[in-house]
């Protein structure tokens, strides 16, 4: 039952010698191996060969190429290019006489393996279910038209041939319904990884998605996998961070000192000590408390001065308190206590040098002209007591928050990219706009 075709031999018109075929890209030269005579390009045989060669050279996978995909050896026997008016894609027909046919669908450099279904999917509302996989509607009622075709197909495909197509998706998979007035067929295509398609047919790897590119309808977000893989690491890191936070930074060996300063009086400087720091490096916590400051402020400069090296570690506190009465009643503001944390003091013996200067705010009290500073100053106010509690060690909450932020930045970045990816993917959806279910489905792993 073989269909016979007519064949003819091609030999040199000048000497009858063997013709050699040399193909370089799109052009083919047919030349006699013996006398060098070239076959005229308008010769029907040359035209047939050149035409075939042109198509072959333009294909990502030349017809006749064999490759092993998922354990089955396939030969690429046909190629067609289709368009729905918006996008153009290529479809390669794979054949193995013992395994049947499969489709390799290439769009935007991404490759999918399509298998025709022998049973109809199960309908559930707008969704379709195949086996245990649920597909949601994505493209509806488009017309797919054959633009170009070459090679063999199990039907005689012609350019211009049209089918009505609807597509349903889930991450990594697309379920396509194609129908005309003669048949209705369902195909599931599965997105192939770059590694898989490269190993089988040695094509260029699919491009990595960057913002601005349009993903395929069934392309899974590459960020979901990362977020899912990363969150246990982030959680574990957070727990470790909490442990470290509780282990380090306890305050020890508190010492208290006090001095007093008169409001608007001179700066009081006093040295306390010794403060002995036995080992390593440590932070120091200084709590400066001025219980009696009222309608005024106290500038407190503290310095830990190493007795041996005279290295100085400084900090500054401003304790203040104002109050009054207005139409809303009594008000008060300002903090009478400040906690200072001084970083990284090496072991050694230190003096604590404290400068305190108290100021009075407002018009109450007695005022007298101070000739030395040429200003009026309040007189007769009670001196303000400055209590200092100095302890070894300090717990810096800022370090904790900074570390937490740094742990969370990469997953948050992935989340933002995921949202951008899904936005770009779902923007192509036909029919009702993307809803929460579409976003939830996008979070699923293929």
């Amino acid at each position, binding site marked *: 039952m073989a269909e016979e075709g007519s064949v003819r031999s*091609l030999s040199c018109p000048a000497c009858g010698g*063997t013709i050699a075929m040399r193909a370089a890209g799109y052009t083919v030269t047919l030349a006699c191996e013996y006398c060098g005579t070239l076959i005229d390009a308008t010769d029907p045989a040359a035209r047939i060969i050149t035409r*075939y060669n042109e198509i072959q050279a333009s294909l990502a996978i030349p017809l*006749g190429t064999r490759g092993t995909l998922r354990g089955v050896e396939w030969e690429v026997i046909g190629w067609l290019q289709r368009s729905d008016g918006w996008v153009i894609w290529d479809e390669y027909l794979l*054949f193995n006489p*013992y395994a049947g046919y499969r489709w390799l669908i290439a769009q935007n450099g991404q490759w999918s393996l399509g298998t025709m279904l022998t049973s109809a999917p199960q309908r559930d509302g707008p969704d379709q279910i195949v086996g245990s996989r649920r597909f949601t509607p994505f493209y509806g009622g488009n017309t797919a038209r054959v633009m170009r*075709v*070459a090679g063999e197909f199990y039907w005689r495909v012609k*350019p211009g041939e049209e089918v009505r197509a609807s597509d349903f998706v889930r991450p990594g998979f697309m379920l396509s319904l194609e129908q005309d*007035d003669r048949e209705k067929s369902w195909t599931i295509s599965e997105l192939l990884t770059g590694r898989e398609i490269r190993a089988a047919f040695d094509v260029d790897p699919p491009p990595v998605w960057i913002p601005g590119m349009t993903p395929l309808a069934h392309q899974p977000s590459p960020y979901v996998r990362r977020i899912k893989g990363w969150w246990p690491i982030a959680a574990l890191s957070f727990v470790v961070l909490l442990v470290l936070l509780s282990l380090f930074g306890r305050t020890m060996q508190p010492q208290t000192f006090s001095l007093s300063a008169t409001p608007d009086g001179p700066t009081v400087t006093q040295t306390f000590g010794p403060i002995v720091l036995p080992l390593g490096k440590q932070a120091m916590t200084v709590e400066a408390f001025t219980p009696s400051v009222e309608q005024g402020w106290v500038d407190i400069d503290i310095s830990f001065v190493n007795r041996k090296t005279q290295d100085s570690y400084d900090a500054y506190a401003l304790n203040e308190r104002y109050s009054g009465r207005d139409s809303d009643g009594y008000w008060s503001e300002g903090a009478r206590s400040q906690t200072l944390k001084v970083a990284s003091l090496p072991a050694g013996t230190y003096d604590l040098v404290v400068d305190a200067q108290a100021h009075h705010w407002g018009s109450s009290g007695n005022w007298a002209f101070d000739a030395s500073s040429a200003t009026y100053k309040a007189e007769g106010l009670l001196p303000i007591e400055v209590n200092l509690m100095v302890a070894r060690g300090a717990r810096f909450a800022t370090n904790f928050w900074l570390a937490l932020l740094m742990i969370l930045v990469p997953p948050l970045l992935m989340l933002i990219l995921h949202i951008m990816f899904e936005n770009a993917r779902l923007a192509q959806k036909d029919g009702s706009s993307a809803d929460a279910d579409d976003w939830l489905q996008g979070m699923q792993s293929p």
Partner: protein
Amino acid sequence: MQSVACPTCGAEVVFRSPALPVRVCDYCRTLVVRYNQDAQGQVTENGGEAAVLPFDISPIQIGTEGNCFDQDFQIIGRVRWAWDDGAWNEWLMLLADGSHAWLGEAMGQFMALREVELTGSLAQVIRRLMNDTPVKPGESGNIAGQSYEVADIRTVRCIGCEGELPFTAPVGWDALSVDFRNRDGRCASFQKDRHGPSLYVGHHMNLASLQPRHLRQLPGWSLPAYG
């Protein structure tokens, strides 16, 4: 696979693909060019070229054995059907119990089908087909207690047959062929020709599930090991 004799030296030249227009003879190194329509595709009205149909390289042959409908079978005959733009095979299975069944082979997929009687209460879609009323793909109806939908409808013509057949199938015999499928892999086929309508039901299969033996050895391809 198509083999022709080299026009120059007479040696066998095998064209592995009908889409391949040229082949060098292994013996005399002459360029052998295929000039038939199928070799480079037909030029269509749109100015493009149509695809060519593959050579009929079925893995099944007369004498192939296997298991279907829970019993052993042997392939004893075949009818090849064609429609405007394609063709498929129907292989006749002789089952162990002496009955016959068909193994339809199209697009690399297999349908095992047994004839059922067209009597009793029939689905409306079948009645309409029997009365030559047009039916569309996607229409549904009950056949033998199962719900099916119409998958494809074609007017077909017998283009060849071989082996033993339960009827005489002259080449050029026209028939209407309608395929049905359902959700769990079952299928049905309705055929109407000049002898009247007939209905077959069965299920889709793949080659491996037939546990085939004595498959046709195709040059260039390795026979898969089944079972």
